[in-house]
């Protein structure tokens, strides 16, 4: 029991670290890509959108296998990283971050795109006329107005990153204390017939997720200019 309790905490922190970093990456990438898809009209835009959604349809294990092929030491990229920096994604928590980011990416960029498209573009025009740079308009007008939709995607992405285990297991392995995240630990406990352990871990994961999601809701910037339904 003591042993289990100790194990839990490393796994909890590792999971938070992996899901947190993956979410940060996806906030940056997902919001940028969502914005680009919403604003720039180019040929094949919807096709690109669809291609970027494909990580969703692939069984995570398969995705993990492709990542292994891409990042492994035998690959061009993996070899280069290893030779120049002595670094490898395989069996490291950074590998888990890569897997979790890719799995959760569509969840972030797609709602972000929809939220940016729903903005009344006259407000961005008003900001332009006031002499504010496009860069600043993004942060001062577009982002706050798209906030709700973006947050919905980011929270989904965080939950998915926390729950992912198929691709993660493949790339990062399942080494307790190093790469064994909560969801991998759950999976392993189930496999080993340790049902109480698994239930406990599910409870812990759920609590972690509830706490993070609820605090994120609190963080949201003040209601964005909307009337309550009746005043």
């Amino acid at each position, binding site marked *: 029991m003591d042993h289990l309790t100790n194990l839990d905490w490393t796994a909890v922190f590792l999971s938070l670290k992996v899901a947190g970093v993956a979410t940060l990456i996806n906030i940056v990438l997902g919001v940028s890509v969502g914005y680009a898809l919403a604003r720039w009209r180019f040929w094949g835009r919807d096709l690109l959108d669809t291609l970027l959604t494909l990580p969703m349809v692939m069984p995570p294990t398969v995705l993990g296998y492709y990542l292994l092929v891409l990042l492994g030491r035998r690959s061009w990229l993996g070899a280069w990283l290893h030779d120049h920096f002595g670094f490898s994604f395989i069996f490291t928590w950074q590998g888990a971050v890569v897997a979790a980011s890719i799995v959760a990416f569509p969840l972030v960029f797609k709602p972000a795109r929809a939220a940016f498209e729903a903005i009344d573009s*006259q*407000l961005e*025009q*008003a*900001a*332009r*006329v*006031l*002499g*504010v*740079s496009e*860069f*600043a308009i*993004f*942060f*001062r*007008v577009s982002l*706050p*107005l798209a906030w709700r939709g973006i947050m919905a995607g980011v929270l989904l992405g965080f939950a998915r990153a926390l729950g992912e285990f198929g691709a993660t297991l493949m790339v990062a392995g399942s080494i307790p204390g190093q790469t064994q995240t909560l969801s991998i630990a759950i999976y392993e406990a189930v496999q080993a017939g340790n049902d109480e352990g698994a239930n406990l871990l599910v409870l812990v994961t759920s609590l972690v997720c509830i706490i993070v999601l609820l605090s994120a809701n609190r963080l949201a*910037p*003040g209601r*964005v*200019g*909307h*009337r309550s339904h009746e005043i």
Partner: protein
Amino acid sequence: MRFHLNIQKTFRSREHTFSLDVRLDTDAQRIVILGESGAGKSLTLKAIAGLMRPDAGQILLGESVFYDQQQGIHLSPQQRRVAYLFQDYALFPHLNVRQNIAFGLVQGWRNPKPEFADPQVEYWLNVFQLRAVAQQLPHQLSGGQKQRTALARALIAQPTALLLDEPFAALDVHLRRVMRAELDQLQKELQVPMLLITHDPDDAAVFGEQVLHMKNGSLLPRS
């Protein structure tokens, strides 16, 4: 300052085609545009502000070329630095009155704080009688309060021209008078061209150094 306008633009919707063809060359500093609803007044101001790109023509303000189709020049709204009052205000719904007014004063990627204090902002809050509602968001404002906020936001930076689309339409007679005086004074200080769209003959009387009539997309010679 010479103001040269010669723009063409066609809008096609399924049943209806609207052609804008505006020609104007003037040294007047205060121009009032009258005209029936749907004549193309707002579109003309949008073209000058850089919010609508004409199909052809030129827009010159003093030395600056805002737009020249043949030379391929089309300055961004930011580069034109005009004061533009949107007919429907276009206030930022997530910012309070004070922040809306101060919006153009700060550069960088952060909005002014809700309590942003600045002599210019205080000045306009007082003049336009908005101090009491300075902390309120646009959806908590009356129609006239919105209009005054939008006007203050447009006027606060040092603009190269004043483009005002029915600036007093939502105001009572008394406030109109106050604000007309204020605008009159501002224009005299800045000495920049002013184009004002209105339906109010009193506006034309005060600001109409040159009064233009618009109809069906074109400017008629002075009335």
